[in-house]
């Protein structure tokens, strides 16, 4: 490829990524040249500005027709735009949240946190916009490696080291598993481009290797469940969530998970949408029962184990495992509403989970412990924080008039709108939701029913207040007017370009 072809390409479509990359580089240089003692907080503002700029570039692209670089290695389509919107929004909120996070003795690593978060975001964005196994994998690794470091950012703390170590080891294993599965797919088709793989798998010659294909599907899927923290690779979540600094935990539970879902949707739907299964049927239909078992197991494991947690971060780790199970349901049932409902739930999940983590950050910092008893009598100490937390919890539990319910309703429409309907899956979803009432409402009970000792009043920090207020308002707004988000979705994104190969313009 000579210079002329390089310059003639439409690099402009990658503007959001370039901005994030540029900000990350700038921050790392600034961090390098700043004197050791100087506060790194201003870097946070720069990072937020970078995200905002990237967001603006993304917003400007909304009207644009789809485009691609390097034969769909990088795609600017509705899918990537819709998911990058969530990724940027989530990271932006987490950065605001992190501005107030007390690093205590590890304050000097604050700068690292900012640019690692941005590189992780970059990886996530690549995962959302790529349609080639190689670039998808690079994005995945960029996200993972940055996350491993971030998990261990509190170097002096044993639990943070433990988190980072466990994360690296399980992450490494799952990456190996993913790659192993991908290698089968590559081996059978000789292609890395997902569209080309999809076309190759339509070929009848593939029928000789059907079993291998199903095998490859499951191996790859199992490997990718690591990123979304669902069964079988979900057990890292509690330890890592508990040990990581809180903004990192929020990042892992929201942004990293969203990127994982983007990758899973893109990869499997493009590769396997018309692949034949064993003896005729479509492969995607044949694997449904097994995926349903995995989704069901995720929901059950997450919700049941959460019942016994006293540590609020571990509790939310299991809760986020359970939520991953819910979000898997549309993918398992593959109905016509797959994209909008998954997207909507992830959007709702972003607001309710980041909001909840914001409150957790405030409460645990004041109580000095992660134990759930820190929430005792919160309503008396700071009523607004308790009310906000109640909104987030009600939303996570799927109570009407919150975004969580609207999202869950959409998931149900998926599960029951196919032929034949997935009654068992819907039943498990609902039953585990009722189970989740126990631990979600236990937190509410702690806040409202218990008096608690006269703890220190919780200091309201600006960043934290902004995040909590924005998230609570959005959770309520999208709960009462889910139509607004759906309308936006249908107007801005035409998802029929998902399956279209785009020639490089």
């Amino acid at each position, binding site marked *: 490829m000579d210079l002329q072809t390089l310059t003639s390409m439409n690099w402009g479509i990658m503007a959001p990524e370039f901005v994030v990359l540029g900000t990350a580089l700038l921050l790392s240089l600034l961090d390098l040249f700043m004197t050791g003692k100087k506060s790194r907080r201003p870097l946070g503002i720069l990072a937020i500005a970078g995200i905002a700029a990237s967001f603006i570039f993304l917003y400007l692209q909304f009207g644009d027709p789809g485009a691609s670089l390097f034969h769909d290695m990088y795609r600017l389509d509705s899918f990537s735009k819709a998911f990058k919107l969530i990724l940027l929004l989530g990271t932006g909120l987490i950065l605001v949240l992190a501005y107030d996070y007390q690093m205590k003795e590890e304050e000097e690593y604050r700068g690292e946190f900012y640019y690692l978060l941005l590189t992780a975001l970059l990886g996530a964005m690549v995962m959302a916009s790529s349609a080639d196994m190689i670039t998808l994998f690079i994005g995945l690794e960029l996200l993972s490696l940055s996350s491993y470091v971030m998990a261990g950012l509190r170097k002096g703390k044993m639990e943070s080291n433990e988190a980072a170590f466990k994360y690296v080891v399980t992450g490494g294993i799952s990456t190996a598993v993913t790659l192993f599965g991908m290698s089968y797919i590559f081996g059978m088709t000789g292609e890395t481009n997902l569209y080309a793989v999809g076309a190759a798998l339509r070929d009848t010659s593939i029928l000789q290797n059907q079993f291998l294909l199903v095998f490859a599907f499951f191996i790859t899927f199992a490997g990718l469940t690591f990123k979304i923290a669902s069964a079988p690779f979900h057990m890292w979540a509690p330890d890592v969530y508990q040990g990581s600094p809180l903004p990192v935990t929020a990042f892992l539970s929201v942004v990293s998970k969203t990127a994982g879902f983007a990758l899973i949707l893109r990869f499997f739907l493009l590769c396997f949408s018309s692949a034949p299964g064993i003896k005729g049927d479509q492969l995607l239909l044949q694997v449904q029962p097994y995926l349903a078992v995995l989704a069901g197991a995720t929901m059950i494991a997450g919700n049941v184990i959460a019942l016994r947690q006293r540590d609020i971060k571990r509790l939310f780790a299991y809760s986020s495992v359970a939520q991953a199970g819910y979000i898997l349901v549309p993918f398992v049932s593959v109905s*016509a*509403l797959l994209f*909008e409902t998954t997207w909507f739930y992830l959007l709702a999940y972003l607001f309710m989970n980041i909001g909840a983590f914001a409150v957790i950050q405030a409460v645990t910092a004041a109580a000095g412990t992660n134990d759930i008893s820190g929430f005792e009598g919160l309503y008396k100490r700071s009523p607004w924080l308790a009310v906000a937390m109640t909104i987030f919890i*009600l939303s996570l539990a799927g*109570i*009407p*008039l919150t975004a969580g*319910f*609207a999202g869950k*309703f*959409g998931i*149900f*429409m998926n599960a*029951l*709108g196919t032929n034949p*309907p997935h*009654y068992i899956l*819907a*039943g498990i979803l*609902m*039953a585990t*939701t*009722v189970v989740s*009432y*126990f631990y979600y*409402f236990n937190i509410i*009970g702690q806040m*409202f*029913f218990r008096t608690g000792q006269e703890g220190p009043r919780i200091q309201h920090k600006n960043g934290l207040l902004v995040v909590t207020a924005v998230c609570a308002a959005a959770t309520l707004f999208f709960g009462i*007017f*889910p*139509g607004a988000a*759906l*309308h936006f979705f*249908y107007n801005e994104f035409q998802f*029929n370009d998902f399956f279209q190969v785009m020639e490089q313009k």
Partner: protein
Amino acid sequence: MSHLISILVFSPLAGILALSLLSSKNERALKLAGLLGALLPMLIAVIAAASFERSASGIQLAEQVNWISYKMLKTGDAAYFSIRYEVGANGLSIVLMLLTAVISVLAAVGSWTVKRDWKSYFIFFLILELGMLGVFAAQNLFLFFIFFEITLIPMFFLIGRWGYADREKAAYSFLIYNGIGSAILLIVFVALFMRAGTLNYGELAKILSTNGYPGLGSTFRMSVLIALLVAFGIKLPIVPLHTWMLRVHVQAPPSIVMIHSGILLKIGAYGLFTFGIGFFPAEFKQLAVWIAVLGVINLLFGAFLAIVQTDLKKVLAYSSVSHMGIVLIGFAAMNEAGLKGAIFQLISHGLISALLFFLIGVLYERTGSSDLKDYSGLAGAMPVTAGVLLAGGLASLGLPGMSGFISEFLAFLGLFKVMPVIAAVGTLGIVLTAVYVLRAVLSVTFGPTRESYPVGRDMTAREKIPAFVLLGLVLVIGIYPGMLSEPLHTVLDTILLGLRG
């Protein structure tokens, strides 16, 4: 298009707003704001009822606004799954909304005994009222579900924060049982939505009455009906799904039990009537024998256990179980008399149990106990209270001239026409009702007057108003049932038309 029903449903918000502006220390103002906040919906409910055309059938005062729209791409053209905001009223729901508004006002008066955190108490109270009004006003399943769940959360708080000693357990068991019920409802509603493409009551009833509509086969219908029976059976409650309700009756503050027993339980019956009988008349008929048996079990089980209870609140809790059995009996009859009896029973029991729990609140306020052992000779110390209690008890056991009689009589009349044997067994329950009501009431009222009673502290004027209003309504319905049957007429006609096929 009139917005009367929407205004009615959301009118408690005015009170909530006023409350949120007041200081949380100002007890008097908060209580007053709570009461006024409950009075406003009652006023609007009366206006709505007045502008309701009694002789006309169908949904009146209807409103419709587009709300949520899912676009489903199906081979080329897009199919829209739309959810509208639609409210309205038929003869039954307008009566129930009126009942809700009235009982809420009286319960607000009963809430004078609340000792702490008045601000959040009344805010939750008014949210609860909003939810209840919405449940009856909703004209599609989505909205019904949303309002149904809205009642759940404030109830959870009201029980868990202002209840008696074992309140938290009661709150959680309320939440979990009702959570299971709404979980089943949600699955049923979405399944119907995805097959019929609409959630509107009227449209659904029409689609379900067309034979051979794709995807709505007989097994599907039957399973949906059974699911509805279980979901609303938890709410009603049907034995053996009743344990949560006993806890709530015993642990929640009396004013909240007035609402719980007076209205919330009725949502189960309303749902069973509107969706169960209204949507699936043929399937309901197939299950009628079982429902009748369940009804008789409820009636007898509740009555037997009420006889042996030593706590007045528990007597009334089991009496509620027993009385809800009569609703089931009326439903199972599937004829005009039976259905009318069941609906009368809803309203009558709503009033009577609200009255009795109000009185328990009055007594508990003075003596700090609801144990039957602690009471005797109340007639001497508190003659008015004792008199009203006796009158309420007589209404509860179905004395002619009071509302309880009409409903029991009609329900049994209906059932005797179709299932005489089961009905005959059921009549035993009427006898038992007399036994447990009289045992409880008489042991409180008569006997030697206790020294410990605070002398001269009979009902105050504030307490007399709710008691006499409720008693008056019970008598009026008992003496002139036509007042109630008139608006219900068109609703029953529509349902009976569906039953004949």
